[in-house]
């Protein structure tokens, strides 16, 4: 799961994850992040570097 807040500044960024994931399939991540109001680079890397692993592990629970 995407972390609830940015590790560095504490901004709640998790709410933007689903839209980010959907839109970046077609659009440029930089533009999507700008649109979502994620302006600081600490928050932007939260999205850019996240790897979603819940779907991988959930069949084994």
């Amino acid at each position: 799961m995407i972390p609830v807040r940015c590790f560095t500044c504490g901004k709640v960024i998790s709410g933007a994850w689903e839209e980010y994931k959907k839109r970046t399939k077609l659009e440029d991540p930089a533009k999507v992040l700008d649109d979502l109001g994620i302006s600081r680079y600490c928050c932007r890397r939260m999205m850019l570097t996240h790897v979603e692993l819940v779907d991988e592990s959930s069949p084994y629970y």
Partner: protein
Amino acid sequence: MKVEIIELGDRAAKFVLSGVAPAFVNSIRRAMLAEVPTLAIDYVNIYDNTSVLFDEQLALRLGLIPLITDLDSYVLPSECSCGGEGCSQCQVSLTLSAEGPKTVYSTELVSADPSVMPAEVVPLIKLSERHRISLEAIARLGTGHDHAKWQAGIACGYKNVPKITISDECDACGMCVDACPRGVLVIADDVVKVVDERACSLCRLCEGVCELNKIYDVIKVGTHPDSFIVTAETDGSIPIRELITRSAENISDRAEALDGYLSVIDMEMEMDHHAT
């Protein structure tokens, strides 16, 4: 002291404080980060959790949800008349139960006090078939001193107001204009002009690329030592206006308390002096 507001939204603000010492601006920043309390989930009774996250991870995610806080109707557990045992004055109960397959959001929390609600839609956990969660969470007031989840202010900071001076020796070669990453400088009528001084990040790249700077002081990036550009943001638990005013009140309250302690020490010293 002078305040000039540049931006004032619901959650973010930018203003210039002038005629103050750096220590004063810093104390405002620190009060915004660590002194103004907010509500956050602090205790969780987990009745059922067959999801992919451990109970502890789930509790952490719950704790980080910003909760809309009316600071006039709640008190810190340590200052409550119940003595910290927990009552309706100092804590709120929120319940959550869900069954997969679905993603559970913070908005599904059912609060005992309808005014205390999550300020953001946070995806808490993705549940598959057969996965269930059922829990009761207790939210309490706290400050950023104890845990970042109680920190109402986000990315609160300040910088000195920049002061860029360009002398007459400038030959308007334009090197500084190209070097500036913030677009602070332009060439107009064959002279270099400063268009957006406050946008300057004080990186001094312009000083470095200027060839004439090796001989004279042509372009110099300085600061106004007693003026500050303050930026602040909240996590949504309280409006930014309230965060700023409450942090200022907090400083004045603590200064008054210190004054009280000092006068007691003064009095005791005087009594000692008379006794001897």
